[in-house]
């Protein structure tokens, strides 16, 4: 029979011939993304800056992107590869569900992402095109939010509380622990309390890392995943919290 009547049984890579390491490395990099669990699920925020070497290339980058109704991926590192990776995964998950008449399992989705990162490792070891994503999801079977991160080789780790990736993440790692030990665990906080802590951390990252954008120019991107799915946090909520987390007023005005 014809080519058209020979199906690919749910294998999207075989269907499209996609390879992440075959993609060219663009000069633009995304910077800091943070995910924490909170009482009702998971909260994910990212700054809006994308840099190319020493230059700020873009101040309205979206680094927290949805893969399906319950899964977000937060990207840092090579922007071109990350965007293509997200596009691939979104369609691969849909392709699987439509052709196989059942959704891909959470473990299947996590492995798919790990395989792509591992496939890209040779390029990443040469210092180009490293993508380090955080994957957040609401596990409808366990009825709880879950946070996963990957290393450059595709190894997957699940965290109990928080994850951060990107150039500003190392500067703030200790602060997560400090908050957890002094103010109680993130997973017991309500949304706005957790949001306040996380936006403060992002602001600290912006202060200590040249590549991370603060909230002064553009509001960060913040999304939650709960049993009801993904939701954007309203801009006025973000704005009112950001006002209090910014380091008071600029020093020049203070005199």
């Amino acid at each position, binding site marked *: 029979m014809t080519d058209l*009547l020979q199906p690919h049984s749910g294998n999207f890579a075989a*269907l499209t011939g996609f390879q992440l390491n075959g993609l060219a490395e663009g000069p633009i990099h995304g910077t800091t993304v943070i995910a924490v669990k909170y009482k009702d699920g998971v909260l994910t925020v990212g700054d809006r800056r994308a840099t190319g070497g020493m230059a700020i290339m873009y101040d309205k980058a979206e680094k927290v992107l949805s893969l399906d109704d319950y899964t977000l991926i937060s990207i840092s590192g090579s922007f071109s590869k990350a965007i293509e990776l997200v596009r691939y995964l979104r369609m691969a998950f849909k392709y699987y569900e439509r052709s196989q008449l059942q959704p891909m399992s959470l473990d299947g989705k996590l492995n798919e992402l790990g395989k792509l990162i591992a496939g890209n490792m040779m390029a990443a070891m040469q210092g180009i095109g490293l993508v380090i994503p955080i994957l957040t999801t609401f596990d409808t079977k366990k009825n709880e939010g879950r946070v996963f991160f990957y290393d450059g080789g595709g190894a997957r780790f699940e965290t109990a509380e928080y994850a951060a990736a990107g150039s500003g993440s190392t500067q703030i790692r200790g602060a997560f622990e400090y908050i957890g030990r002094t103010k109680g665990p993130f997973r017991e906080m309500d949304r706005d309390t957790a949001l306040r802590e996380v936006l403060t951390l992002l602001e600290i990252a912006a202060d200590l890392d040249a590549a991370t954008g603060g909230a002064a120019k553009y509001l960060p991107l913040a999304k939650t995943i709960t049993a009801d799915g993904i939701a954007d946090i309203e801009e006025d909520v973000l704005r009112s919290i950001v006002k209090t987390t910014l380091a008071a007023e600029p020093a020049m005005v203070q005199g």
Partner: protein
Amino acid sequence: MSYNFYDFNNALQQRNEYVEDRLRDGSPVVGLSYDGGMLLLSLKHSQRKVYEIYDKLMLGAMGKQSDIESIRLAAIDAAHREGFQRSEDDVSVQRLVGFGLSPAVKRVYNDNNTIPLTFRGLFAELNATPADDLYFTLGYDGEFRNTKRYAVVAGTTYASEQAEESLKDAHLGNLEDTVKAALRAWGIARTQLAPLPEKLDEDGEEITLPPTPEEILKTAFEDGMSVEAAILDRHTKRESRFRLLRADEIPAL
């Protein structure tokens, strides 16, 4: 051995008969647009009848399950390959059925060494308004036709025409009325396979009228059939516009 015109004609006729016989008693599929989206509806015993193909495409089909499967998967593969390599916006029912599936199905039909596909399918493409929604019906011989707002595939051409006639004046706002209209159309498509004789029979007795759509639906439910209906939602915020309807969304007639 020579192959004359008679053989050729005869072979085609036999192939058509083979398929038509098997499709005749199949469960029709009704497609109908309303303000909130588009609906495909059928009745089934156990096998699925209505499927998601792509972001704004779905398929309802009658025929052999194995043949439906191969066309369904071919459609999904072609749509996803195109959508990834170009853009989601470039996947259209016109291109998918007209240039992809129809020639492939026709090649199978034309090949005298294969059994033709027992398949009659209805592809639905969601657009901005009900008036713009597209329906493509694809037959076992590769022939296709397109309509707007509504379409029916059934056991015979006459049956689908009768059912479509009943949908002609439907201006539908809500899902419940749409499902009701589609159920009635399914009943018509299921019973009116051929025109009724016009006169009373020779003895002057009245001919037996076929059951009404309501009666045929009642019988179908008693036989253990259940409604399978899916929508493509025009206004949803979910990733997927396609959704199978729940049992409580199917109104009783």
